[in-house]
């Protein structure tokens, strides 16, 4: 079971944590958002919790809780640029239909 970052995503995360001045790594997760299914969660982590699993990807600590892992296993987090917009994108093999927005999905 694993979660990975593309090299580009890892570079950006590392950079953001440096500029933020502190941080253990990043947390990927899902939360339910009504019927529309699951929403992705992407946060800085200052401290991992007991229930968390921690992966290492290109030198970045990726933290995820067990429940979320079932939905995100195999996910690759990428950093992309689309026109003026830029940010992270979940490439999640478990997602059946992504809402066009990229923020939520169904399994």
């Amino acid at each position, binding site marked *: 079971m694993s979660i990975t970052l593309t090299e580009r995503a890892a570079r950006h995360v590392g950079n953001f944590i440096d500029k933020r001045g502190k941080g253990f790594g990043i947390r990927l997760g899902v939360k339910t958002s009504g*019927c*529309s*299914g699951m929403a992705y969660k992407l946060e800085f982590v200052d401290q991992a919790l007991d229930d968390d699993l921690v992966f290492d990807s290109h030198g970045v600590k990726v933290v995820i809780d067990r429940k979320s892992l079932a939905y995100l296993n195999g996910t690759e987090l990428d950093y992309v640029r689309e026109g*003026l917009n830029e940010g*992270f994108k979940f490439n999640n093999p478990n997602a059946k239909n992504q809402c066009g927005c990229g923020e939520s999905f169904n399994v």
Partner: protein
Amino acid sequence: MALLQIAEPGQSAMPHKHRLAVGIDLGTTNSLVATVRNGIAVCLTDEQGRALLPSLVHYRDNDIELGFDAMNARVSDPRNTIVSVKRFMGRGLADVAHIEAMPYIFEETPGMLRLRTAQGSKSPVEISAEILRVLRKRAEASLGGELTGAVVTVPAYFDDAQRQATRDAARLAGLHVLRLLNEPTAAAVAYGLDNTSEGVYAVFDLGGGTFDLSILKLTRGVFEVLATNGDTALGGDDFDHRLYCWALDHARIAPPSAEDARRLQMAARAVKELLTVSEEAPFRLRLDSGEEVDLTVTRTDFFEMTRPLVQKTLVPVKRALRDAGLSPRDVKGVVMVGGATRMPHIQRTVAEYFGQEPLTNLDPDKVVALGAAMQANALAGNRREDDQWLLLDVIPLSLGLETMGGLSEKIIPRNATLPVARAQEFTTFKDGQTAMSFHIVQGERELVSDCRSLARFELRGIPPMAAGAARIRVTFQVDADGLLSVSALETSTGVEASIHVKPSYGLTDDEIAAMLRSGLENADGDQAARALREQRVEAERILEACTQALAADGDLLDEAERTAIDALIARLRKLTAGHDAATLSEGVNTLSRATEDFAARRMNRTLRSALTGHNIDEL
């Protein structure tokens, strides 16, 4: 598609519920927009990667050119190309210096001047709104959604009329203004001074055309502007001009044509900027006249020829310190703002004067926008719990009432912390007096005629009493943006009158409403339609998701639950045909809430099936 940003722990927003907030530096020469992304304040750039947007608006017969696109029009169509519109905000003709030298056709209207352009008469508020609109669109394209709000910066010395004009321009551009913030305060915020340090700071802002010096005092998250001073005709442009004159002297060429003069000026600016990073720079170009300029400027030459300009910046510095009753040693840090503070001899002079190295590690063009973005992010509620800071500004000029003899009675003194309310009692001075008129003024001077008139209003219906018997309580209230409302109450009878001070610059609420409406008639400004469109998409998305979820896992619901959800689905279907974004949004939220439990049950089922066949150690 909304790309995700990293949120602070526990702060990630629900999908489609991001609170996108920006900071905007609406500058005389250049404007910028910034936001906090992945925890870091960054300026947003245009398609060509440029963060600065020249504050230039060119009105053509049928359209508008803006920013870099309008640069050439300054020479080819000066009358319709508005530069430095910030100088006109909230100002009448009499307030603006050197108006006779400007290429515009001005119109005198009560309060604020207007300019006649190829597209008719335009107020400075409308012109500024064009710049803000471009920045708003840039931000929306960059952040992938509609903005929740913006913090817009203003010079610390801006009075009520200028602040109100700025706020109106932002509204007109379709921005929700979270706060107007003083530029030097924003710069201090960008340097993190707000949460680390107490003490007195100087903000040294040398831009393209203006120099502003502010002395700020920080105590427990409150920024107080102790003094501001400056020179509205001193900036990087003057350094260009010195180089230009030097080149004319040394190149032995005939007096240049207007076109050649502009070329030489642009070359001078490039040379100036190059000398910031290298010891010498070539001043080389071929003119239209066929003549050639081929010179080399050393840093030493440049420093020598511009020394008087550098010395000139110290004059407002000294005055501001004197006003604040401080010496250079009392200043704990000096924040450098404005592109022209990159010049090494400016930095050296400031360092010598204050006896310490100034803060220069942030980009001086960007610090104001970055600080505004940080403030916007906090106001929009995106900061983590343990890091809530409150930033308070103070009122820049005293607010008062005209009293007998044309004197100003100060009700709220300058430097009172915002928001603030102060009341004072007045009485009638004639027997049987039934009305009283109030004249609200702003400024430090004693004589009303030396202060700025903000508004007048009347309290009528005071019962006839002996002179001095009525008790009239006048309350001044200033909100967090520094905007004022005043009310008067006769306490024995409860008769009351009040006014929101729309400073007397000529734009009434109706006019603003009309301007907003006409803005909305332009397709892209049509926010209501856009909100509806977005809510429809949202509704369709959730309907689709629910239908699928019910088909897959409908057995998880009992009959009553199923009926309730079906009813909400039917209701939302009906609402999508309607035209009211707010009801539609409410319908989406209701359905979403009602299905939360169902979603959780589905999640558990999936989880169980995902776990089947694995043992927990594998996880």
